[in-house]
């Protein structure tokens, strides 16, 4: 019998959110809170020749104006390469240059407009190709001179390379020479934005005795504590980080960014509380965005349509600062081929500095970008081989007996069953061979398919934890360090706990806000690892709780502990279930009818640390970076007008190997949400820069997301090949819905227009241009 797993229970925060009562960082009332505003660079790369803050300081109500000179520290999760405020040099348009702290926001904004800056422009590099060209301007004079936080980042002196990873197995060059069919394709994909509904915001306060309180819209409360502690030499115990609800993160709130500035601001005014909320334009141009990517892919197959070899180069455009991008380059290397059985492989993945806004994790950690390239190349190769692209993928699907690019031996538990996903999506999408069909004059319908896979790239020693306490009615409270940002992790954890305790999930209350003082450390709410990492911690905490309940039960019922069962909110002896004690009478110890105190109050605790992961071998790339993989197959159907190059997206389907369906409705909506984000990004989103490297129109008037009313029909199917090592077999799933969608869209549009479209975003104008410029 299932108590909670597989049930479509409502999200735990549903009522708070639909009634508008959920509180976010900037909703929290603040009496006596000062406001801060940023002045940002209008130059992509340049020397700050003059910075005059005197007029701003003269504005009544201004408390402090900070510049780079006030903060010598450098920041970053992997290498310390980023100043809080530009020092002497600006490296992207939008980079914070000065910070005004004032009695209120209008005053701060007025003062910001009075700061005078003069830049002496330096040559800007705006793409990885430009940045790697002979004689290119250097974004950082000494990229290898920065302090590393982790060992496996490899900046190269005298270049713009922030890191490089190499993966090699077999002999790709030789194997390609022997292939019957070979395709080669280059790609250049622009950066884009996260556009969480809630813009980034943070506030800071320092007490008279030096305790720092940060309230922030962050996916990494513990990362905030760590980076602030290390940079400012504040003992970690003196830093308290609070995260209420987060209005969407998508990876963009994993970096530590505004928290640093808010702390500097508070420090400059004697520790008074300061809030820093950036307007949407700065949330786009100044805060970290999604990577751009250039790629060169060569794939070869033999006569019977089996992929033999791949040569792949990825150049990730990480913008002006490294942030987490070197690890995205690593992640791109680890999963470089897509989920296919390929024996001979050579892949180089570079993380390249440019004068773009610096990049950070974005839903699926670069997989949405490189998967576009590899899945387009796979489609091209399938066409060359004359095989239906979906059948071609089944033929080449990774399976037990294969090895991943970094030479991990594939098992069903580890990687799941891609073939089954493909077979199921074939039915779900009513696959018809992937060829365009005229339905009336000038109007063609077509479908495109793409696969997805992803493993994680956490630190090899990342941790999570869970605490469980009881209420007098026998319901439980679950405390974790997981941030609720819409991804449903807390609800899944409640279901995992309810199942383990054999109780109604309605009796599990989840503590939503995170406070680093009270919640056990959870690495970060990223990488869709909540169910795996926090799930393990919850299972252990539940085991701990159950053991204590059994001990109390044994004393209360006077029988051996082995005979005690716990289910349905009761403690009872297996031999005589009619004699039971409800939770409310036993969770705080037991009082016998004779008023004798028995047992002890019950408190569950569980911790979890990742095990068995490794760094990649620098020569071959051999190694295992994440606990397991999630695979899936996706199909997009379009209807295009071949005359106007406009199109509609009719449907998007995903079949994903989720391991175990914890909550069908929640999982469906998360996967549909991923598809929606993929459709939006691939069809219309790009950060557009002018020739000087100034981002054009960073606002929502012109940067359009997919809106309600234009959504296609989303179809979701599940495959339940369990991951043996995970709670109830569940796999990471919450970000993955995006991964194959851009490629499936491009494959569909290529079929519909009868031309190979290898670009993003796929706007009618860009399609028109590509087809006009391509020789027939």
């Amino acid at each position, binding site marked *: 019998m299932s108590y909670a797993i597989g049930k479509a229970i409502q999200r735990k925060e549903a009522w708070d959110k639909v009634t508008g009562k959920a509180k976010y960082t900037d909703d929290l009332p603040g009496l006596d809170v000062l406001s801060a505003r940023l002045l940002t660079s209008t130059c992509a790369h340049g020397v700050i020749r003059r910075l005059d803050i005197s007029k701003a300081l003269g504005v009544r109500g201004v408390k402090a104006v900070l510049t780079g000179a006030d903060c010598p520290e450098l920041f970053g999760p992997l290498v310390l390469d980023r100043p809080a405020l530009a020092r002497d040099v600006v490296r992207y348009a939008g980079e914070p240059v000065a910070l005004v702290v004032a009695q209120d926001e*209008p005053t701060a904004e007025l003062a910001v407009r009075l700061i005078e800056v003069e830049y002496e422009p330096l040559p800007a590099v705006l793409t990885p190709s430009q940045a790697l060209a002979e004689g290119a301007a250097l974004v950082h004079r000494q990229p290898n001179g920065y302090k590393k936080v982790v060992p496996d980042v490899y900046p190269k002196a005298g270049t713009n390379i922030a890191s490089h990873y190499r993966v090699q197995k077999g002999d790709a060059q030789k194997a390609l020479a022997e292939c019957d069919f070979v395709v080669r394709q280059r790609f250049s994909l622009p950066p884009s934005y996260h556009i969480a509904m809630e813009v980034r915001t943070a506030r800071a306060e320092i007490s008279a005795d030096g305790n720092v309180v940060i309230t922030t819209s962050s996916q990494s409360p513990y990362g905030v504590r760590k980076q602030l502690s290390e940079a400012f030499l504040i003992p970690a115990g003196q830093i308290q980080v609070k995260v209420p609800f987060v209005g969407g993160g998508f990876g963009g709130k994993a970096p530590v960014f505004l928290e640093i500035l808010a702390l500097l601001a508070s420090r400059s005014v004697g520790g008074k509380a300061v809030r820093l909320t950036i307007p949407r334009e700065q949330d786009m141009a100044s805060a970290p965005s999604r990577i751009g990517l250039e790629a060169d892919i060569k794939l070869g197959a033999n006569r019977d349509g089996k992929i033999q070899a791949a040569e792949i180069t990825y150049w990730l455009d990480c913008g002006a600062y490294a942030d987490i991008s070197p690890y995205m380059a690593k992640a791109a290397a680890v999963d470089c081929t897509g989920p296919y059985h390929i024996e001979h492989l050579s892949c180089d993945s570079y993380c390249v500095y440019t004068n773009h806004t610096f990049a950070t994790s974005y839903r699926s950690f670069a997989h949405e970008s490189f998967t576009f390239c590899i899945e387009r190349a796979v489609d091209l190769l399938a066409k060359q081989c004359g095989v239906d692209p979906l059948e071609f993928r089944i033929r080449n699907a990774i399976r037990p007996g294969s090895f991943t690019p970094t030479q991990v031996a594939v098992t069903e538990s580890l990687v799941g069953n891609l073939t089954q996903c493909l077979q199921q999506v074939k039915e779900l999408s009513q696959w018809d061979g992937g060829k365009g069909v005229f339905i009336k004059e000038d109007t063609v319908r077509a479908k495109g398919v793409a696969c997805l896979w992803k493993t994680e790239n956490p630190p090899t020693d990342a941790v999570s934890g869970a605490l469980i306490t009881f209420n007098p009615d026998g319901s439980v409270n679950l405390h974790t360090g997981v941030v609720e940002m819409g991804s449903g992790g807390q609800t899944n954890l409640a279901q995992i706990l309810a199942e383990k305790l054999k109780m109604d999930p309605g009796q599990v209350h989840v503590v939503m806000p995170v406070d680093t003082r009270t919640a056990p450390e959870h690495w970060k709410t990223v990488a869709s690892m909540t169910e795996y990492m926090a799930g393990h911690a919850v299972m252990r905490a539940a085991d701990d709780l159950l053991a204590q309940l059994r001990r109390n039960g044994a004393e209360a019922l006077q029988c051996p502990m082995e005979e005690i069962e716990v289910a349905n909110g009761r403690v009872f002896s297996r031999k005589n279930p009619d004699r039971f004690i409800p939770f409310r009478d036993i969770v705080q110890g037991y009082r016998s009818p004779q008023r004798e105190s028995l047992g002890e109050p019950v408190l569950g605790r569980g911790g979890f640390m990742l095990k068995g992961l490794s760094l990649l071998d620098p020569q071959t790339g051999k190694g295992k970076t994440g606990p397991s993989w999630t695979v899936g197959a996706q199909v997009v159907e379009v209807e295009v007008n071949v005359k*106007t190059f406009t199109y509609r997206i009719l449907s998007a389907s995903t079949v994903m190997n989720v391991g175990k369906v914890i909550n069908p409705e929640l999982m469906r909506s998360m996967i549909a949400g991923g598809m929606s984000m993929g459709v939006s990004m691939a069809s219309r989103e790009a950060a557009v820069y002018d020739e000087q490297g100034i981002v054009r129109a960073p606002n929502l008037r012109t940067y359009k997301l997919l809106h309600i009313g234009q959504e296609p029909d989303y179809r979701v199917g599940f495959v339940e090949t369990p991951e043996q090592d995970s709670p109830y077999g569940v796999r990471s799933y919450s970000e993955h819905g995006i991964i194959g969608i851009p490629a499936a869209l491009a494959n569909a549009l290529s079929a519909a227009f009868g031309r190979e479209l290898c670009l993003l975003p796929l706007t009618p104008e860009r399609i*028109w241009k590509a087809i006009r410029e391509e020789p027939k």
Partner: protein
Amino acid sequence: MIPFDFIYCRPDTMEDAYQAFVQLQTEGKNPYYYAGGSEIITMARAGSIRPGAVIDLKQIPQCRVLSLDSEELHLGSVCTLNEVKESKLFPLLALACGRIADHTNQCRITLGGNLCGTIRYRETCLPLLLADASVTLFGRQGLRTVPFTSVFDGRMRLDAGEFLVQVHVPRKALQAPHYHIKQTASEKIDYPMVTVAALWQDHFLRVACSGLCAEPFRSAEMEAVLNAQNLSGADRVRKAVELLPQPAYDDVEGSAEYRKFVFQTILEALLEEVTHGPL
């Protein structure tokens, strides 16, 4: 957030509005006439304008008119796009109003604001250009009513302090066969890549366009070509595209070349419609 204070002034009569403007101008307050506020609020927030005062026209009765008499349709300048749309009195204008911004904003943006604002598309002007509309203005000499085209050449050319009171559309145009197509970059609710409005009146196709060039236009030369019976449809379109009154516009939403291409495909579709009967 608008980071500065400004005076809010809400006159009840046209005279008071004009006097307030003159007074505030003299005091160096840089006053703006205010109706729906969507442009003033967003531009003040972005720092591109800094009005010291706004004069809200929404309480002036003459500016609120929405009525039809035996000769003309009268539309007050502060009627919202949604009011104009829902009145259903001028179907072509209703189509234009229904494709500007989203419903929430259509309930705030006014006809006058769309015509007199700085956002360059001014799509409500297209039906007015086609319908031989006239406008009533209030300024230094009091009221004056003039042909729309005499004060609109892609943007409103008003005297200092003058404001739009009403728009008048001859009845004849209201029910004429018409055509309206707006193509955006991708998203349905967006500025136009190209919007074309057409009206079939007196056996003649009238065409006006927004988005294509820096400013909206109606061109006699272009209409002559589009109505040339001796030319094939393809030739008419080709020649019409060569007759742009200004260079095609180029910005982050679309290149000049692409805008011309879109214009061409829209004209082709339009002429296709015309050959199948009067729109």
